[in-house]
């Protein structure tokens, strides 16, 4: 049983609600154990099965958490456990500890809490050090619920704080950390810093430094203290601390609070303190600290009196020349110097610096030096590029690099080879001198971003993190990405990175669930305008808005309208929190956790970001319906179309086919009514006539049996889609016609050989000329010893495609003998196109993702289309109908399709519609297939 409890504990931890009904059993078991019902050999020092008790108490704690009803059941047994555990042996303390833990975890009951509190007293006051430790640990936990308890034991706590054993000290600090408020923060932080100075253990430093930084940010009584504490944190924590700490600190400094004056003072103080720190000779500071310093000096030195930039630059120059400074830090410093140059345009030090680094071996530094040099020559530009105190203005970073689309398209038009990702290039081992390297890099990132973001790929985490880390890298390495944006600072780069991060995550989570594109219902709603005119209106507008956004700003791609709603809610919730905690720096208490605040900031910026995007890209479209009427109307139309298309597609081919079937049926009927003319043999997939067999209108009565045969044959194969019967060759005696049947596993060619004469044909021989492109599963030759007069024989060949091609003839001949005459030979040929061998591949989005990554061959092409078909659903419908591709999923203006070439060469297509263009992107395991398919797609789209 002891073993099974561990399993229960784990399961309950994961999903407590599913096991609530077991509470009674656990309580009974515990009661029996506590009551001494177990055999004596389970006792350990006369305590019955203590480890079992501990395990059960843990389980009850998990079950009773925030659940008054379940907790009710456990009160009795907990009380009993507390009572029974006579404090005779260590193990009873272990049980008591667990008991207290449980009592404070479950729905509280005052009596029990009181008893538990008394128990803790026994622990903490115990002279045994192990028990003291346990007591502190319990107290740490309990204090979160009931801070008053700390007052009772304050003397003990103070004692423990100066205890020689570091672990006791550490636990006490942990406890203090939980009870910190604005009044006691400076004392507690001081104690923590003391401990920090003694400690060498890296893990302890990391966790303590994080806690100090958090407390300092939350409860700082004044600016001076805050900056001093952070200085201590940075110099002790150095390079091991979590990178969030300096980043948050800088953000706090940059974003400031409500009070402009207060901000200025804080910044000024920071600048002054850093200058004085740099004043000290031979002092060693961790790299991170230097980075923080250089950023702050670069941004806020202007707050000092005039004439100082020169001094600051000299200081920074000194740092740059320091051997121990890493190149990353140098980049930060360089950025700071660049910012300062504006204030001291004729600085000699800057000149010296430029000269020195223009010949530096470090290419990064050299680049910065040249950038600085050129900036210095153009003061106006520099003013625009490096505005003062604008570090927290939001930048719209187009992470998808969509602004390069035009460039890429141009390149493609001029015959440049489409970009191939690195792994493919390696695989093919082709020398691709044509591909320009810049383009490579940008497209790589671009495509990767889009794809990892849009499709729920299985190895998503991996690829995602790699992209993120790379972007993080750039952010770090060039804090002054001057060429990139107007505001150059590590902070903004970092913010941008975060934004992208969260954007992408949300996009993935909410738009593409396991079951595919989630907001399907929404589309359906859009499809029935009569039913919900009001709701639909707003949905549509928002949808359109959302679509438009996507078109121009792939970054905002993932903001579905529900998400926008959520964000509005979140920001309205979190903004309040954020400002509150910001105020708290000035001395007010609050309980908002650090993380919350951070989140809110990100949300806030993101929201602002979205608004900007709205303004720029769809100035007239606002989700809140102050939309000009005609625009609204027009877009409604588009959306309506889109809606229908989407619904059709998402409902799968079934609906679509049946729809079309009825359509074409009606059409047929009409045509037949109008005239008895022969229907011209329709092209293969046009209007889906393959669903219905319309026999070629008989003109010769002798064909009657042929027709009956064909129809019977085709009835057999009714479940398969097939073409019309086409006459291949004939003479006065014989007629050969053929019919293609598109079976799922192969192309079935049916040859119908009709004997029109009244004579018997002997040893008729049908032979197909083998070609390398086709693989015919049966023997290509076929022989009928005899064909009776006026009868028809059918021969079937299963054909597979060996090598992709666009169109290819399959030729053959037929030989026969009439009585004893010599052989007569008739040649025929039938044209097979690639489309005869393409079948829809029914896979789900996830599989698509997996496959997509596994294929190396890809082809990308932008196809210009007329406005009417610029919308995605239309394009998808066309492809589904005419090429028989399976629509895997649709998201906004992107769709994914899959098909395979018989026998089993898969090919995937990603399709994105934007502004009269459709970007097609094929991937396949076969190198030539994408090209052929692309050709077919282009043809189909031009036709339609």
């Amino acid at each position, binding site marked *: 049983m002891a073993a099974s409890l*561990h399993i229960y504990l784990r399961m309950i931890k994961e999903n407590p609600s599913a096991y609530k009904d077991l509470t009674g059993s656990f309580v009974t078991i515990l009661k029996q154990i506590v009551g001494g019902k177990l055999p004596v050999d389970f006792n350990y020092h006369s305590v019955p099965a203590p480890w079992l008790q501990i395990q059960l108490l843990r389980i009850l704690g998990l079950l009773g958490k925030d659940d008054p009803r379940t907790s009710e059941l456990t009160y009795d047994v907990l009380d009993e456990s507390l009572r029974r555990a006579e404090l005779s042996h*260590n193990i009873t*303390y272990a049980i008591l500890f667990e008991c207290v833990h449980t009592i404070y975890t479950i729905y509280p009951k005052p009596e029990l809490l009181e008893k538990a509190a008394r128990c803790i007293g026994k622990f903490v006051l115990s002279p045994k050090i192990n028990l003291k*430790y346990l007591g502190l640990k319990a107290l740490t936990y309990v204090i979160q619920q009931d801070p008053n308890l700390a007052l009772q034991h304050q003397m003990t706590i103070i004692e423990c704080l100066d205890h020689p*054993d570091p672990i006791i000290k550490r636990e006490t600090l942990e406890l203090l950390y939980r009870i910190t408020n604005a009044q006691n923060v400076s004392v507690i932080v001081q104690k923590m810093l003391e401990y920090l100075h003694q400690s060498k253990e890296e893990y302890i430093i990391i966790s303590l430094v994080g806690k100090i930084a958090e407390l300092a940010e939350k409860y700082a009584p004044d600016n001076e203290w805050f900056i001093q504490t952070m200085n201590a944190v940075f110099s002790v924590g150095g390079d091991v601390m979590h990178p969030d700490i300096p980043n948050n600190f800088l953000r706090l400094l940059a974003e400031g609070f409500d009070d402009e004056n207060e901000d200025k003072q804080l910044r000024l103080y920071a600048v002054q303190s850093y200058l004085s720190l740099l004043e000290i000779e031979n002092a060693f500071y961790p790299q991170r600290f230097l980075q923080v310093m250089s950023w702050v000096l670069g941004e806020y030195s202007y707050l000092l009196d005039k004439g100082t930039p020169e001094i600051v630059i000299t200081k920074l120059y000194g740092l740059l020349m320091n051997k121990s400074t890493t190149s990353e830090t140098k980049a930060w410093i360089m950025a700071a110097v660049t910012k300062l140059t504006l204030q001291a345009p004729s600085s000699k030090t800057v000149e010296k610096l430029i000269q020195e680094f223009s010949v530096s071996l470090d290419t990064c530094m050299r680049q910065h030096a040249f950038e600085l040099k050129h900036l210095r020559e153009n003061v106006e530009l520099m003013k625009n590029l490096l505005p003062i105190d604008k570090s927290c203005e939001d930048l719209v970073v187009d992470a998808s690099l969509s602004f390069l689309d035009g460039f890429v398209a141009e390149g493609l038009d001029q015959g440049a080879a489409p970009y191939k990702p690195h792994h493919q290039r390696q695989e093919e081992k082709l020398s691709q001198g044509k591909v320009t390297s810049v383009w490579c890099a940008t497209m790589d990132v671009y495509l990767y971003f889009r794809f990892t973001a849009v499709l729920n790929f299985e190895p998503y985490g991996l690829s995602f993190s790699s992209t993120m880390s790379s972007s993080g890298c750039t952010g770090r390495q060039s804090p002054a990405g001057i060429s990139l944006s107007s505001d150059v600072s590590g902070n903004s780069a970092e913010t941008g990175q975060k934004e992208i991060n969260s954007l992408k995550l949300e996009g993935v989570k909410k738009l593409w669930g396991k079951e595919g594109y989630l907001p399907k219902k929404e589309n359906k709603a859009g499809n029935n305008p009569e039913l919900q005119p009001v709701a639909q209106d707003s949905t549509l507008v928002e949808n359109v808005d959302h679509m438009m956004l996507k078109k121009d700003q792939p970054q905002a791609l993932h903001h579905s309208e529900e998400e926008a709603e959520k964000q509005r809610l979140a920001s309205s919730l979190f903004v309040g929190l954020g400002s509150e905690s910001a105020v708290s720096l000035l001395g007010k208490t609050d309980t908002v956790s650090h993380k919350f605040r951070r989140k809110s900031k990100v949300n806030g910026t993101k929201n602002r970001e979205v608004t900007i995007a709205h303004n720029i890209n769809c100035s007239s479209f606002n989700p809140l319906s102050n939309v000009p009427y005609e625009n609204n109307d027009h877009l409604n139309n588009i959306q309506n179309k889109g809606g229908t298309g989407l619904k059709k597609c998402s409902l799968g081919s079934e609906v679509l086919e049946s729809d079309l079937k009825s359509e074409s049926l009606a059409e047929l009927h009409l045509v037949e009514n109008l005239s008895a003319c022969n229907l011209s043999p329709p092209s293969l997939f046009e209007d889906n006539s393959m669903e219905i067999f319309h026999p070629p209108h008989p003109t010769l009565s002798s064909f009657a049996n042929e027709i009956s045969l064909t129809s019977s044959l085709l009835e057999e194969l009714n479940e398969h889609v097939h073409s019309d019967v086409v006459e291949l060759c004939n003479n006065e005696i014989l007629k050969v016609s053929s019919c293609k049947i598109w079976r799922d596993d192969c192309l079935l060619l049916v040859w119908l050989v009709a004997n029109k004469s009244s004579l018997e044909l002997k040893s008729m021989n049908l032979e197909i000329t083998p070609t390398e492109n086709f693989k015919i599963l049966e023997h290509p030759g076929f022989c009928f010893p005899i064909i009776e007069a006026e009868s028809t024989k059918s021969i079937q060949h299963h054909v597979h495609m060996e090598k992709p091609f666009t169109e290819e003839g399959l030729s053959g001949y037929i030989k026969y003998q009439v009585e004893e005459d010599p052989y007569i030979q008739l040649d025929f040929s039938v044209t097979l196109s690639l489309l005869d061998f393409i079948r829809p591949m029914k896979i789900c989005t996830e599989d698509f993702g997996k496959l997509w990554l596994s294929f190396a061959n890809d082809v990308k092409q932008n196809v210009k289309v007329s406005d009417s078909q610029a919308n995605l659903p239309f394009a998808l419908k066309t492809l589904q109908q005419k090429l028989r591709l399976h629509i895997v999923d649709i998201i906004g203006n992107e769709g994914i399709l899959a098909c395979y070439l018989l026998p089993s060469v898969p090919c995937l297509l990603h399709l994105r519609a934007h502004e009269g263009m459709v970007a097609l992107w094929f991937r396949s395991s076969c190198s030539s297939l994408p090209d052929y398919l692309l050709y077919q797609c282009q043809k189909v789209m031009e036709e339609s």
Partner: protein
Amino acid sequence: MIKFFLMVNKQGQTRLSRYYEHVEINKRTILEADVIKTCLSRSKEQCSFIEYKDFKLIYRQYAALFIVVGINETENEMAVYEFIHNFVEVLDMYFSRVSELDIMFNLDKVHIILDEMVLNGCIVETNKARILAPLLILDKMAES
């Protein structure tokens, strides 16, 4: 959860080691050396629990032999502390007055005992009679 169970003597020689989380072989030696160093440097008045990296060590000294258990934050330190004693009591019962030599020369049996008591890092059996039952049967088999 228990991460590892070590028996090390004062000279720093590992007598028994059992890992419930994967640790590379070469890292084990480093870890064991480091762990015994930390334990040896502590006095009797100091706490038997040590914070070590991101987990905790619980140790107990029996003559020249240290038993050190690495646990994560979900485990109850005192329970593990007493569990070590329970383990030693079981050894004592089986070997009747267990010594370091007993452990050295009957390592297989010590392992059997430990495996009876700890499974996948969880304490599953503490009843001495039950722990020893399979071992006694094995012994009987070996005799006959």
